[in-house]
C-alpha cells in the first residue's frame, strides 16, 4: 500500500507544486488522480518515483511510504527494486532501441533471470503486437503501440504498484478505450495502479478510488463511481450535465451586479 502524508514539494526552493497532499493507494486497487494542468499530478509521480532531484525539486514536509518503507529521497533505481515503477508521460520509449531492447531496459533493475523471462512472456501475452514487432526500432511504432511498449517496459520490472502518467495523451478515442482495458487487466493480475489522467471519463471508468487535485491540494476524493456523479467533477472534468447551467447562472449573477460609485 502506498501512503502519501501531508506532502509538500517545491521546485528551486520557490515554486510550491504540492501544498500538503494526503492520499492512499490500497493494495490491489486502481486509484485515479485527476486535475488540470499545473495541479501537481506530475510532481506527485516524480516524488513517488524518485526523479524529483533531476528536476531540482525538494520534499519540504510530509512522507511517502510504500509497504511501510519510506520512499522519500531514495534513488530511483531502489524504488523500482522495491516494486514501484512509473510509465512516464508522453511514453518516452527509447526510439533507437528495438522493441526487445526496450523491454530489456525495463528489466534492468533486477538480476533474476527467471522473473524477467516470465515478465517478458506476460508482456507479449498482454500485447501480442509487440511480439510481432520485437526486432523493430521503438521509434517506428504507432502512438498506441508505443504506449503499449511503455507499459510493457514498466511491467518488465515486475511492479507491485504501477504509476501511469497520462497514458491517454495524444491517442485516438478507440485506443484510449483499449488502454483502459489493459489497465483493468493488469490490475486483475494483481498489480495496484496509480493512474494520473486528464481524461476523466477513462480514468473514472477504470478506477476504484479517485482524488482530484487542484493547485497542489486534494480538493475532492472518494469512490470513483460516486465521484463521477458529483456536480463538481461533472462540470470540471466530464464537461456535461448540470455544469453548463451553473456556469450560465453564475455569469448571469455576475452581470446583474449593478455598478455603483466608488466612495471608500
Amino acid at each position, binding site marked *: 500500500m502506498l501512503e502519501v502524508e501531508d506532502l509538500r514539494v517545491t521546485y528551486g526552493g520557490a515554486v510550491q507544486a504540492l501544498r500538503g497532499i494526503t492520499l492512499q493507494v490500497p493494495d490491489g486497487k486502481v486509484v485515479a488522480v485527476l486535475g488540470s494542468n499545473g495541479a501537481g499530478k506530475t510532481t506527485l509521480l516524480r516524488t513517488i518515483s524518485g*526523479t524529483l532531484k533531476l528536476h531540482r525539486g525538494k520534499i519540504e514536509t510530509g512522507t511517502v511510504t510504500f509497504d511501510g518503507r519510506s520512499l522519500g529521497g531514495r534513488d530511483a533505481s531502489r524504488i523500482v527494486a522495491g516494486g514501484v515503477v512509473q510509465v512516464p508521460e508522453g511514453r518516452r520509449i527509447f526510439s533507437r532501441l528495438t522493441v526487445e531492447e526496450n523491454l*530489456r531496459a525495463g528489466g534492468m533493475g533486477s538480476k533474476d533471470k527467471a522473473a524477467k523471462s516470465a515478465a517478458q512472456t506476460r508482456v507479449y501475452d498482454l500485447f501480442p503486437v509487440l511480439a510481432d514487432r520485437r526486432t523493430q526500432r521503438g521509434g517506428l511504432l504507432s502512438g498506441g503501440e508505443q504506449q503499449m511498449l511503455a507499459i510493457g517496459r514498466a511491467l518488465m520490472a515486475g511492479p507491485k504498484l504501477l504509476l501511469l502518467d497520462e497514458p491517454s495523451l495524444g491517442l485516438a478515442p478507440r485506443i484510449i478505450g483499449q488502454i483502459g482495458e489493459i489497465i483493468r487487466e493488469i490490475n486483475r493480475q494483481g498489480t495496484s495502479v496509480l493512474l494520473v489522467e486528464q481524461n476523466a471519463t477513462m480514468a473514472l471508468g477504470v478506477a476504484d478510488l479517485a482524488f482530484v487535485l487542484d493547485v497542489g491540494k486534494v480538493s475532492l476524493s472518494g469512490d470513483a463511481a460516486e465521484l463521477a456523479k458529483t456536480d463538481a467533477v461533472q462540470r470540471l472534468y466530464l464537461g456535461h450535465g448540470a455544469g453548463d447551467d451553473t456556469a450560465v447562472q453564475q455569469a448571469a449573477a455576475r452581470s446583474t451586479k449593478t455598478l455603483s460609485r466608488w466612495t471608500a
Partner: protein
Amino acid sequence: MNTFLTLLLNGLSLGAIYALIALGFAIIFKASEVVSFMHGSLLLFGAFTIAKLNDSIGFFPAFICGVLATAGVGLLVERLLINRLRGAPLISLSILTIGVDIMMLTELTRRIGSDILNAGHPWGGDFVRIGGIGLTENRLYAMITAAVLIALFFTAFKFSSWGVAMRATAEDGETAALMGIKLGRVSALAWIIGAGLAAVAGLFLVGSPTPGVTPGVHAVALRAFPAAILGGLDSTGGALAGGMIIGIAEAMASGYQEQLLFLGRGFGDVVPYVVMILVLLVRPSGLFGTKELTRV
C-alpha cells in the same frame, strides 16, 4: 604507388589509435553528457605509469597496472566530481575536466622533466614489410589490438546488458532512471572504459616512430578530439570513422609534405583540425551524430 600504400597503412594504424581515444570521448559523452577534455593527460598518465613500472615488474604486468591505474583515475574523477555535481550545467562539468587536465599535466610534466622515458615495449622499432609497403612493428600491434578492442566494445555495446543500459541512458536519462537503470553506475563504467582505452592508446602512441614518453604526447592525444567531433560526438561508430579519417589525413599530409610545401611545414599537425572544420561545415552534427542534439 608504394609510397601511397605505405602512407595509407600508416594512416590506418595511427587512425586505430585515435579511434581508441575517440571511442572513449564518445562513450563518456553518451553516458554522462560531459565532454572529457582530460583525455590527453589520462593518456599521458597511462603511458607514464607503464614506463615507470616497467623496470621493476616487467612490461606486461606494467601494462596491465597502467591501464588499471588510468581507469582508476577516470573512476575517481567521475565519482568525486562529475557524479557529485550532477544537475550542474553540463558546460561547467566539461570545463571542470579542463581544470583536472591542467593539474594532471603539470604534475606529470614535472615528474617527467626533460627525460624521454621508455615504455619498454618488447617489440622494437623494426619495420614489417608486406610487399613493398612497410609499417613499424609497434603500429602493426597497435592496429591489431585496436581492432580486437573495438570489436569487443561494439559486441558488448550491441548485446550486453551494459550496452542496452548505456544506449537507453544516452537516449533518455530520466526514463532510464525510471526503469531502474542506475545512472551513476552507467556513467562510472563509461569513465572506466574511456580512461582504460586512453591508456592502451597511450602505450602505442609512445612507441616507435614516436621516441618515448614526453609531455608532448598530450598534444598528440588531443588530435583524437577532432576525430570524435567529426564523427559526431554521440556516435560510437562515428568515433571509429573519425579516428580513421584523421589518422589517414595526418599520415598523408606528413608523407606528401614536399608536395604540400606551399602550405608551410608541419601541415600534418594541423590537418586534423582542418578536416574537422571542413566536415562540420557540411554536416554540423558530425558524420554520424544525432541531428537534434540538444546537449552541450
